[in-house]
């Protein structure tokens, strides 16, 4: 696909749903609804809020209930969307979410939105906070419908799903066959990109290293810096904790059940009845978060190396630095 045809291609994507793309808002970027490709800042580094927001709403209604009839009516409603310009790390993060939300007990709400969404990936260049190369999430093998690799005056497009194949064949006028010169150019661009990564994190055996560092002083040191605000959870593409509340109507008999994203850095997270808190201080909460991110889900770590928690931490706690300290490298 040539660079010129991007505008027309994006316009055509409307057939597949509302288009969301990275738009510059203030100092950061955010996935917003767009009508044409010019509105997008496709050379963005990372959005503040990851694309999980399309699948796990900050707040959503699960069902309404009526005590008198003992009835629970689920509320499912959502339209089709196209998420354009999603980076490899965020694609991996969604793959991780899929492992949790689409296991043998699939989450209906998540599943519905996931099926309604078309993901179009877009190549990126790392900045000083990206460590996706260390996490092995810098190149998306699957998990997208289409993936656009930006070359000099064209895009190399990879198809990642049947849906992607359908879109490509329905828009075949935009696509040309790949020639050997394109492959050469793609290879060079990828090779150059691999060398652009400056931030490295040794992840071999990190899970065990974290378990062995349970009593480490590092946790106390960083917990003293931590505000316990939960920003890292909000911006993390793999953080998925949620809370559930019932909102009762004035008749005290009917109401709705809502769920909203929660944060393990907040005090309430480890609280059980009788006031017992399993993670009473920031030390335990910080250690818990790093243990969670460093634990393995099948073959993947719960962290994709997007760097958001470091960038958006108001107390400037550097995720990679903490793990290096835990390992004793610093």
């Amino acid at each position, binding site marked *: 696909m040539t660079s010129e045809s991007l505008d027309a291609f994006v316009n055509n994507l409307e057939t597949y749903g509302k288009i969301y793309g990275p738009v510059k808002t203030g100092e950061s970027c955010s996935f917003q609804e767009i009508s044409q490709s010019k509105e997008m800042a496709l050379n963005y580094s990372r959005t503040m809020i990851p694309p999980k927001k399309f699948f796990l709403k900050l707040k959503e209604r699960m069902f309404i*209930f009526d005590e008198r009839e*003992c009835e629970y009516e689920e509320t499912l409603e959502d339209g089709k969307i196209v998420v354009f310009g999603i980076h490899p790390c965020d694609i991996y993060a969604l793959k991780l979410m899929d492992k949790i939300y689409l296991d043998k007990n699939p989450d209906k709400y998540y599943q519905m939105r996931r099926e309604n969404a078309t993901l179009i990936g877009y190549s990126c260049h790392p900045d000083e906070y990206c460590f996706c190369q260390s996490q092995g999430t810098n190149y998306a093998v699957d998990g997208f419908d289409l993936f656009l690799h930006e070359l000099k005056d064209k895009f190399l497009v990879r198809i990642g799903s049947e849906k992607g194949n359908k879109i490509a064949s329905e828009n075949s006028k935009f696509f040309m066959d790949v020639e050997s010169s394109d492959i050469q150019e793609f290879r060079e661009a990828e090779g150059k990109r691999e060398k652009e990564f400056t931030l490295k994190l040794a992840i071999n055996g990190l899970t065990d290293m974290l378990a062995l560092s*349970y009593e480490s002083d590092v946790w106390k040191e960083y917990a003293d810096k931590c505000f316990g605000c939960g920003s890292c959870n909000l911006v993390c593409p793999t953080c*998925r*904790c*949620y809370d559930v509340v019932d909102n009762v109507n004035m008749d005290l008999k009917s*109401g709705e059940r809502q769920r909203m994203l*929660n944060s393990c850095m907040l005090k309430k997270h480890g609280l059980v009845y009788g006031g017992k808190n399993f993670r009473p201080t920031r030390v335990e909460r910080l250690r818990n978060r790093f*243990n969670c991110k460093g634990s393995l889900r099948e073959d993947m770590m719960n962290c994709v190396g997007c760097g958001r928690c470091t960038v958006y931490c108001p107390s400037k706690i550097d995720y990679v630095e903490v793990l290096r300290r835990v390992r004793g490298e610093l």
Partner: protein
Amino acid sequence: MSNELNPYLPRPANVTSVKNESLDTKTLRFRLINWTAPFQAGQFVQLLLPGVGEAPFCIASSQSDPKHLELTIMRRGIVTTASQYLRPGDAVGIRGPLGKPFPVSAFEGKDVLVVATGIGIAALKSLILYLVENRGKFKDVTLLYGARFPEDLVYRDEIRRWSEKIKVIITLSKATPDWAGLRGRVTDHLNEVELNPSTVAAVCGSPAVMTSIADELVNKGLKKENIYVSLERHMKCGIGKCARCLIMGGLLVCKDGPVFRASEIDIRAIGE
């Protein structure tokens, strides 16, 4: 309704009876309306009180009756307090059964020790009932039950019945002068149980107690993989999504537990 498809939707149940166990603890019996919950000992359910909220409780009845569930609830938080006001006929919602049960078939032919402290016995009751009902499958079965005050003891009538089939040791840590039975903590009385290297233990109590019992049993020669603990955490989804019940090592109490082998988890994780 598409309950089969949406695991978040509770299914209807009615309260059929309420039994006072102690000053702040009641056992509620529920009849499931047009559905059954074929559960195994050790599993739990999410009890929803419309307009109040939802909380997880281990099933405290026999797995031979999947049409009725019993939950023993101590008044502590919001849902548990509201549940004290339930009366026969009241409607509630139930999701479950959830979680991994005790692997009872692995207990067969072995000595079984059940250690419960306080209301922790509610989480072990379904297991005790299974052991009592299938007594012939197991060698020596012992229930070591500890509480603080005499009035904290629950399941009094049932324990009397169980003691005809299994050995029961009850100890109180804050006994009143008129208490004729044993005094002290459960760990003080582990010596009274004959333990051998193949003994299987199931433990539930407060986190600190579970940690010390697990340590003590390991010291006495039990294998870590033969010690089972039933953990409790705050839960929202019950099916491994919301991560409220995360413990050390990325394990989720709702999905990977609530019953864990002591070898599976970091013993420190019991308390954290």
